[in-house]
């Protein structure tokens, strides 16, 4: 099983090397290679998930190899509930992304090499238990994205007057800036734990024996919060994100909005919360305020957008606000909700971007006011889009609903005024989301049909429908039966936030109540098959 994890993570990279050796005039073979690689790694993740010991809280499928013993670096992979959930997400989106990449016709060889390298970068980050390799994979994901957007991207000229080159450079610089900021914090923790090992588990053990002083925690925490926050599009460092998504080719938008962005939030949950609990408590209030700005400010910006990709781009910034709010609660329900929301939002964002890519590829136009009545020509895509929008607005039945509810419950449970105000803002944010998304769908998919678009073709074959159906199915399964994930997430989250100490008086009962909370929420019970 440990071996399966290593294979699943490294398989796309191996396929990229193999594709490098292929002649460039055989794009079909390279495409099939990419489909096989991502498909097999999805199958492997599902196998791992099926074999995951749901009763156990710690890491599973652990394999460890000394890498640079002089510095205490080891190649250390393993999964707990949080990373298992997110790796499943990577598997789904990478596979669906490869399938919808049939729209790429130019320089396919380079395209698939970069896409596969990107996939390994992301999944490696989620699976790493060693800070060095966490950082290694994390940075590795940035550059393929630069080229994917720069070469295959498209940014229709608009009032913003930006080119795709500008968008991709901005994105790359923001992400790298965040990464190096986080690096300084990571190294400071490495020395705080004695400077002998980069192993996260080992560092956590060291910190349990002799914790870092409160002062250093307060100083180190913001480097990680903002460093990873850049990637999680924390307000006001989010401006790279809508622009980057708008310029990216479909599969790159899917990967980025779906999983790459989640790396930031994952970094905070995986590293900053358990290793710097006092720092987290100190900065939680600021994080809540910023998260509210994320939700409302980005939601407001999304309302103003006319380009489909910008709408979804801002909407994903807004949704990351819920994730950050969940993290700021520092209790089991809230943080678990954040993890589940990452999963749900990742699928939803990938689905929406793939649908936009589907019609944009044919219309070469994605301005909401210029599209009208598309559902008449492409009913399947229209239906999927309506469902994606419903998921995004948090309708019951989709995975987004239970996760958002958990975030709200967690935030309300903190009991302080600021958290309760934030909860109210966040609930209000759902209304905002529903407004701009439903408006966009109504305008472009329904209403009078414009003859301009009579050449549109729907996804008719099963094969073309498959990627969209796959993402929707995952959303619905988790939406109807959230415990399939929440059980394993909550056990691992307990390990992340258990050391919260005094600040969690309110959270401890919440922790005990957590399973019931999930079960007694009426909608969750009703919809269980």
């Amino acid at each position, binding site marked *: 099983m440990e071996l399966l994890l290593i294979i699943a993570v490294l398989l796309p990279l191996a396929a990229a090397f193999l594709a490098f050796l292929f002649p460039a005039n055989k794009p079909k073979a390279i495409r099939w290679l990419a489909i096989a690689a991502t498909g097999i790694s999805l199958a492997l993740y599902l196998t791992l998930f099926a074999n995951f010991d749901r009763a156990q809280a710690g890491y599973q499928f652990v394999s460890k190899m000394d890498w640079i013993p002089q510095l205490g670096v080891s190649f250390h992979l393993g999964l707990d509930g949080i990373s298992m959930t997110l790796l499943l997400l990577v598997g789904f989106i990478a596979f669906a992304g490869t399938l919808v990449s049939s729209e790429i016709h130019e320089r396919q060889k380079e395209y698939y090499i970069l896409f596969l390298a990107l996939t390994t970068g992301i999944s490696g980050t989620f699976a790493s238990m060693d800070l060095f390799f966490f950082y290694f994979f994390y940075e590795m994901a940035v550059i393929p994205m630069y080229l994917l957007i720069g070469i295959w991207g498209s940014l229709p000229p608009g009032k913003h007057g930006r080119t795709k080159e500008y968008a991709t450079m901005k994105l790359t610089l923001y992400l790298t800036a965040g990464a190096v900021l986080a690096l300084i914090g990571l190294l400071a923790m*490495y020395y705080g734990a004695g400077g002998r090992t980069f192993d996260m588990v080992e560092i956590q053990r060291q910190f349990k024996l002799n914790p870092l002083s409160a002062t250093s925690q307060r100083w180190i925490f913001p480097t990680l919060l903002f460093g990873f926050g850049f990637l999680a599009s924390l307000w006001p460092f989010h401006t790279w994100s809508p622009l980057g998504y708008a310029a990216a080719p479909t599969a790159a938008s899917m990967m980025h909005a779906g999983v790459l962005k989640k790396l930031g939030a994952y970094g905070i949950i995986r590293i900053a919360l358990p290793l710097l609990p006092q720092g987290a408590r100190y900065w939680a209030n600021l994080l809540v305020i910023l998260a509210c700005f994320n939700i409302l400010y980005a939601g407001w910006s999304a309302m103003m957008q006319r380009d489909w990709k910008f709408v979804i781009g801002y909407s994903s910034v807004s949704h990351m606000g819920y994730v950050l709010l969940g993290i700021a609660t520092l209790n089991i329900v809230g943080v678990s909700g954040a993890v589940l929301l990452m999963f749900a939002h990742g699928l939803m964002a990938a689905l929406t971007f793939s649908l936009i890519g589907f019609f944009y590829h044919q219309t070469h136009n994605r301005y909401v006011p210029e599209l009208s009545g598309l559902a008449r020509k492409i009913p399947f895509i229209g239906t999927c889009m309506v469902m994606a929008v419903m998921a995004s607005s948090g309708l019951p039945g989709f995975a987004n609903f239970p996760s958002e509810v958990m975030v709200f419950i967690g935030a309300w449970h903190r009991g302080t005024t600021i958290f309760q105000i934030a909860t109210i803002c966040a609930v209000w944010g759902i209304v905002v989301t529903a407004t701009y998304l439903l408006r966009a769908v109504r305008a472009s998919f329904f209403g009078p049909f414009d003859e301009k678009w009579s050449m549109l073709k729907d996804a008719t074959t099963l094969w073309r429908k498959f990627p969209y159906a796959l993402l929707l199915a995952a959303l619905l399964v988790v939406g109807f039966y959230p415990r399939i994930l929440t059980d394993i997430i909550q056990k691992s989250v307990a390990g992340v936030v258990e050391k919260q100490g005094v600040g969690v008086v309110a959270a401890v009962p919440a922790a005990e109540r957590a399973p019931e909370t999930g079960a007694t929420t009426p909608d969750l019970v009703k919809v269980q098959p």
Partner: protein
Amino acid sequence: MMGLLYPIQFECLAVVLAVLTLLGDAFKPLPDRRRLGYVLAAVMGLLLLYSFGPWIQVQDQTFFHGMYRFDAFALFFKRLFLLVLMFVLVMAAEFSPRIESGIAELYALILLCGTGMLLTASVNDFILLFVALELVTISFYVLVSYLRRQLPSLEAGTKYLVLGALSSGFNVYGIAYIFGTMGTTNFDTLHARLSALHASPSMAFTFGLLLVLTGLGFKISSFPFQIWTPDVYQGAPTPVTAFLAVGSKTAGFALLLRVLFTGLLPVQGVWVNLLMVLAGASLLYGNLGAIPQRNIKRLLGYSSIGHAGYMLMGVAAINSIGAGAVLFYLGQYAFTNLCAFLAIVAVSNVTGSSEISSFSGLGKRSPILGAALFIAMLSLAGIPPLSGFFGKFYLFVAVIARAATDWRYYVLAGIGAVTAVISLYFYLGVAKAIYIQEPENPANAGPIPVSDPMRLALYVCMAAIIGLGIFQGPLVNAAIQAASVFGLR
């Protein structure tokens, strides 16, 4: 006799080879001088292999009246210089069609210059330091202005001559002050005398130390002795630029590490603050100055100032991790820069230009050259899984190790982090030209031919950049072992 020559065998072989090249050319000029370069490169490769044999034993003693050392540190650098010589000779052979006359002399000068570099690895005395440094610098005066009918090359040669002579003057003047105050030029004796000194060293000694640092700062092109770098890098023939960027800089760092960590270690309080300032200033100057550059050799000149800043960060940390990190960095930096310059030589042989715009569409015109230059740029920018990433990471580890006791190192690391992001901007500018932009003149955008030795050299460099980026262990081991001669904590 053999025992006497044993520690200087590499230097002797390089000199003999240089003389043979000159003699052979005088008696029997080869019709194809290109092949001679490949042969010399192959000989260097064999020497490099030979240096890994069990018959090479490092010795913990000095030779020639304490002037010369043959320890793990020296061997590490000698291997590195042999490697650099090998690639530079390949590059010179590729470049040779663009040289009107005196090709055998070019090879001989490169070898003589390399002899000086091999000597710097073992220096244990200020007198030998000066001699080795002059051997390198004087050879470079000729090499830089080798394209004697081209104005930029002559301009670069003059600049290098004037500033180089000035820095040599500073250097020897500083050595005189140090000898005058401490009564010795030997590093070991100096170390002992400075350790015995209870008060802080005299003003005259400090003055001498600063002058010596000026001379070395010129070699590694650190701020504020960097003014010559972009101009000379741009004007010099490309193989010479590569030799300056990797050989000369590495020699400068070999001397700097040796001087600071043996002779001058007891007075670290005098120079450490200065070094931190120089590191920070070089980082900012090099990386900010590179942003508006349109010529790739000039860009690499600024980048070389920035990289001097990174390595100075590791020196300023004064710990064993820092020394090891600098050695690792130098090792990977050699491969990375050589890879970039090899590709530049191949491209500008065809296009006759080193403007960044002339590299646009390179990914289509020649996939291997495009990939090589792209990988080299990303490695310089410090992107995993390439060796430059681990080099920077290792340096940051060293600096943060000191930061626990001295907060100013956090500032230094912060500058390093910010400039790493800045540097990504201009390195990606080159990447953009290679892969995103279309060739500027479609009529003139045919494939670029790549000769077999060039192809082999490129593959070796790329394999090394990726290999060292993923399997860092062997070079880290070698670096730590070499750095252990200083006995730092």
